[in-house]
Structures are given as C-alpha cells and as structure tokens.
C-alpha cells in the first residue's frame, strides 16, 4: 500500500512535469523552469514519511516535492503561469513557490534551502513536538557556504532536520565530480550527521532509508542526511542548450561548435596541451549528457519502479491513467478551459 502511494506520487509528479514542459514550450511559462524528472521517487518517498506538522524547504528543482506533498495543483500551475489567482498571486513564480498551509518554501538561491530548513526545524523543535523539517539540496549546492555552515549548525543545535541531497551529477554545465572534493556523504558525516545512502531508482532502498532517518530525527537525535543519486533527465532546465547540443549536434549545436573550434585554433592564447585539455573536457561533458537516461528507457527511475511494482502485482497502469487524468484536468482548469 505504502509503495503504491509512493508510486502514485511519482506518476503524478512525472505527469505534472510533462504538462509543465508543454506549457513551457508554448511560451506560457517564462524564465528558467527546472524540471525534476528523475527525482520523483526520492520526493515521493520522503514526503510519504511526513505529517502536516512537518515543513519543507526546497530548491529551484522543487516540483516533485510540491506535487507529492499534496499541494492543490491548480494554484501551483496558475503560479507558474503568473496568474493573479496563483499560489503566490503570480508574484513568486517557479523558483518561489510558497505555501503557508503546506509549510513549503522554495528559493532560487543555491544553498539557501539549508538555512531556511534549519529555521523550520528550530521552530518545529520549540513549537510542535515530533515535527521535523526537510531541506532539499542539490549536489552542487553543497559547495555553497551557507549550506556548509548549516551542516555544522544543525548538529550543534541538534535540530530535527532531514537534509535530502539529490546528486544528479550536475550543476548546470558542470559535471559534479570535477568541482566537488571528497564524497558528499563523508562530508556530512564529518559534521556529525547520521547519513543514509540510496539509489534514487530503487523504491525499497529510498523508502527504507528515508523512514529510518526520519525516525531518528523525530526521536530528537539530531539531523540526518539522505544522499540519493538520481538522473537529471531533462537537463538543467527546460530547453537546456547542452542537452539540445548533445541530442542534435548538427541542427542545434552548429553555431556553438563553430565558435569553439574557432577559439581553439586562434593565434595567441595558451599552449596546445592546455587547449586540448579544455576541448577534451568539453567533449566529455557532452558525452556524459548523451548517456543520461531518457524518458521511458529502462534506466528511467519511473520505468524501473513501474516494472517492479507491476511484477508485485499492482495495477500501475491504472495509477498512471489516474495521474494523467488528474494533471490534464488541473491544467485545463488552470488555463480556464472547460474540462470534460
């Protein structure tokens, strides 16, 4: 039952992201829209452990958490559309989804979700026994000072804080291992955190890790760190040029490639080795993007989970259909269309 609920939220999140992508393609959503496809499972499994008293501090890539938390979708979609009757009256937008009722805040400043989460946890600790706060964070963001500070603060203040670190291997165009020293779980451990490690495509793994950590945090034993690897399935944001370049180098990348090659062969500049190293690294990054799981292929966490539950006899097709219907309806209502 529990796994089904998690799967339901995964499916809802994925449908939500697909619908958002369509609205975005149509130009109805402005700015940088970060899809959370690939991390639906982590979001769903973590929120499954929460009560209404718990709070969430999220990043720019927050949709799956928002959906799984059960925030009514029409105001959320309307907010993305910038409508006056959106969740934040059209003032916040995709990187600033705030819901007081659902205790959700987001921020477009990389790293800021941790201090805010620590504050939520502090309030919980004083005002709502057994409540906790969840703070989502990306792997790249764990190099940001305020995030690192919070690793220390939360421990010494013994805060009921669960950090969910989603390592998708990237920060925009930067492949994470190139600019992150050591390992992130080790990093958290060195600040005294209880750390859980999970494969973001393995529903049992994520769910068990989340439950175990939440239990500890609720028991007042201090903060915990859930480290989960997930693919970044749609690039940094919708329309990511690097993804387009990797997928269609000829049609979408010609200009870029021409300029780069021009630079590499310009007179003056650094020595050949230094230049070649640069070019090689760039090609490596593009290659890495090519190997990211695509929607529907057998490394897509949704597909993996669907298969697994299907084998266990659950009617996932029905869940998917329901999710599809729910989202289609929410979009139609948000656009002010009649819904059949």
């Amino acid at each position, binding site marked *: 039952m529990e796994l089904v609920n998690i799967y339901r939220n995964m499916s809802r999140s994925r449908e939500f992201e697909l619908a958002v992508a369509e609205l975005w393609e149509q130009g109805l959503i402005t700015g940088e829209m970060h899809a959370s496809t690939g991390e639906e499972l982590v979001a769903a499994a973590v929120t499954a452990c929460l009560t209404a008293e718990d709070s969430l501090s999220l990043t720019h890539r927050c949709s799956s958490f928002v959906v799984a938390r059960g925030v009514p979708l029409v105001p959320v979609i309307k907010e993305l559309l910038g409508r006056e009757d959106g969740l934040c009256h*059209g003032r916040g937008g995709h990187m600033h989804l*705030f819901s007081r009722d659902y205790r959700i805040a987001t921020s477009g400043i990389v790293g*800021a979700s941790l201090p805010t989460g620590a504050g939520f946890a502090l309030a919980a600790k004083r*005002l709502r026994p057994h409540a906790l706060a969840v703070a989502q964070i990306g792997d790249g963001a764990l190099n940001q000072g305020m995030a690192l*500070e919070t690793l220390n603060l939360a421990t010494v203040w013994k805060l009921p804080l669960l950090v969910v670190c989603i390592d998708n291997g990237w920060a925009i165009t930067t492949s994470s291992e190139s600019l992150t020293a050591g390992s992130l779980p080790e990093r958290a451990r060195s600040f005294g955190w209880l750390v859980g490690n999970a494969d973001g495509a393995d529903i049992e793994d994520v769910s068990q890790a989340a439950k175990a950590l939440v239990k500890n945090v609720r028991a007042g034993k201090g903060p915990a760190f859930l480290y989960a690897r997930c693919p970044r399935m749609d690039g940094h944001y919708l329309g990511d040029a690097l993804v387009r370049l990797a997928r269609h180098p000829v049609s979408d990348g010609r200009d870029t490639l021409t300029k780069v090659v021009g630079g590499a062969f310009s007179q003056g500049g650094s020595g050949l080795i230094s230049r070649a190293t640069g070019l090689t690294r760039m090609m490596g990054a593009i290659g890495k993007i090519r190997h990211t799981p695509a929607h529907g292929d057998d490394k897509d966490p949704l597909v993996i989970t669907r298969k697994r539950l299907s084998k266990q006899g659950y009617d996932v097709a029905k869940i998917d259909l329901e999710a599809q219907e729910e989202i289609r309806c929410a979009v139609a209502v948000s656009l002010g269309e009649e819904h059949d």
Partner: protein
Amino acid sequence: MIELSLGQAIDRAIENAMSEDESIVLIGEDVPMLRAPLYARFGVERVMGAPISESAFIGAAVGAAMEGLRPIVELYMVDFLAVAFDAVLNHMAKLEAFSGGEWHCPVLIRAPSGGGYGDGGQHAQSLWGMLSAIPGLTTIIPSTPMDAYGLTRTALRHSGPVILFEPKLLSEEWLEFLGRLGREDLEFDVPENASGMVNEDEFAPFGRAVTRREGGDVTILSLAVGVHRALAAAEALASDNIQCEVIDLRCLSPLDRESIRRSVAKTGRMVVVDEDYRNYGLSGELAATVLEAGLHPTFVRVCVEGTIPYNHRLEKDTLPSVKRIIEAVKEICQS
C-alpha cells in the same frame, strides 16, 4: 522611568518582550555571555549561542520566523552582515512579496554600528543607506535610550523584518567591551546625554521623525550619533545667531518624508549629517525627498567620504564632527 544607556534600553526592551511573548528567541554569537542576564532568566532554549556562521543562523532565523517563532538575531557589528547579505536581500526582505503577501517574517536583527573608538574600517561602518534601499525591510536607528526602547518594542510586535542599528558610541556597554576594556582613563568622544530616561510603557512608532531642536534658519537632518553632534553644533551656532532645526530621522524605511519637507519648506536650507557613506545613500534620498516635493533648499552634506581610517584622529575627521557641521551650516547660511 529609569535611567539607562542606549544599549541597556534595548536589552530592557528585549527582556520585557521576551517575558511577554514566548515565541521570542535570541540568537547570536556569544549571546549566552553577552546577554548573560537574559540567558540566566530565559535559559538555553531561548537564548541560543551560535557558531560563527552568520549566513546559516540569519537564514535559519528567517525560516524560524516563517514557522512561528520571533527570532532576534544579534550580530557583533553591522559590517559583518556582509557575510550574510543574501539572507537579508534575497530572503527576509522578499518573502512577503514572493508569497503574494501571505507569509510573514518577523525577524529583528540587532546590529551595532558606527565607529569612534579606533577599531579600523571593517568595524566602523553604518551601512543603513544600502540596507534601507532594500524593499521589504524596516530600518530603525535610535539616538536616545527612550527611542531605542520604544522602537525595539515596536519592532518586536511588527509582522516583518526589522534591522535595528545600535550606535556603538552611544552604547556604554559596547564601548567598554570593544574600546575601553578595563582601561579606566581612556576617553572617547561620547556625546553628553548618551544615557537617558526610559519609560517602559512607551512604544515608538515606525516612520516618524522627531524634532530635537526647533529653529528657523537651517534644517539639519540626522540620526544616531549625528543627532548629538548636530545638537552640539546648533548650540554653538545659536551664539552666532543662526537657529538650527535638528531633526532625528529615527527610521529610514519607512521614511517620514512629511516632517522633512515641512521643516525644509520653513528654513529653505538643509544640511544632512550622516555617519554612513556619502554617495548613493541617505543624503541623496533626502535630496530627492525635497526635490520631489518641489522644494529647492540650499543643500550640503556632512557624511563619510571614504573608508574609515584606523588612526583615531583621522577617524574623527572622517566621521561627521561638530566642527564640520558648523562649517557646513555657515557655508549655506552665507550662500
């Protein structure tokens, strides 16, 4: 009524508010020792020492405020707010706007400010100009213990974020802690009447300036230590038959534009005395305030023009002194 220093008045306001409102917590480096009486009274859960992680604990204060607490964050000095500027600019100030007015963030930041005790230019800034530029923040800057008490009390019932500047030169405790340090014969150029009477029942409103001295010839607009310097200058100028009106702004955001305009309309001359940097700050905003109202006073500013030097005499000359104010007033009275 009790006689208190400006710093003690803030402490008292905090203590009274904390005893009335359980949701108030005090956060900051060394607060268990710096505010030992509060620590002893309200305990480890409400007076929380913080590691040297201003971004994290100010950011956490914002989160805590959103979820039902009313944190007071103490900084050692406003200069250090630079390491946590994001929490101020992009979070506490923007929450209300971003949430479409639905969520509030009642945080009070207590930030000692200003120089005058020879600590060098990273420990002597005022910075209220740039902080008041940020939409969504309230900035209060008392020059008397009564205002310090009353504005702090108001801040601790306000629904949004407030930055309280505590002029170190007016807080006997900071001067002792950072400057005198047990050296009994060390003198600072502390204004007379830095201590004063406080009525614990009186709150001070935001956005309301106070006329500290009336006069028809020149309007001196100031705040914090500057008010005391201006009053001393006005006293001296009175013997030259120049009558200065001294206005204590007290609150920069919101700014009491009405009172400023009324006085400047009367005198036609305007001197701004500001311990903060001259350019792109308070003195400019005051100029715009009168111009927008169609007033055309003669205008001069007595502000800080560069990085504040360590050398005590140079520091004194860099900060607005009585001497510089007198010269400025005379200059515009002649022209």
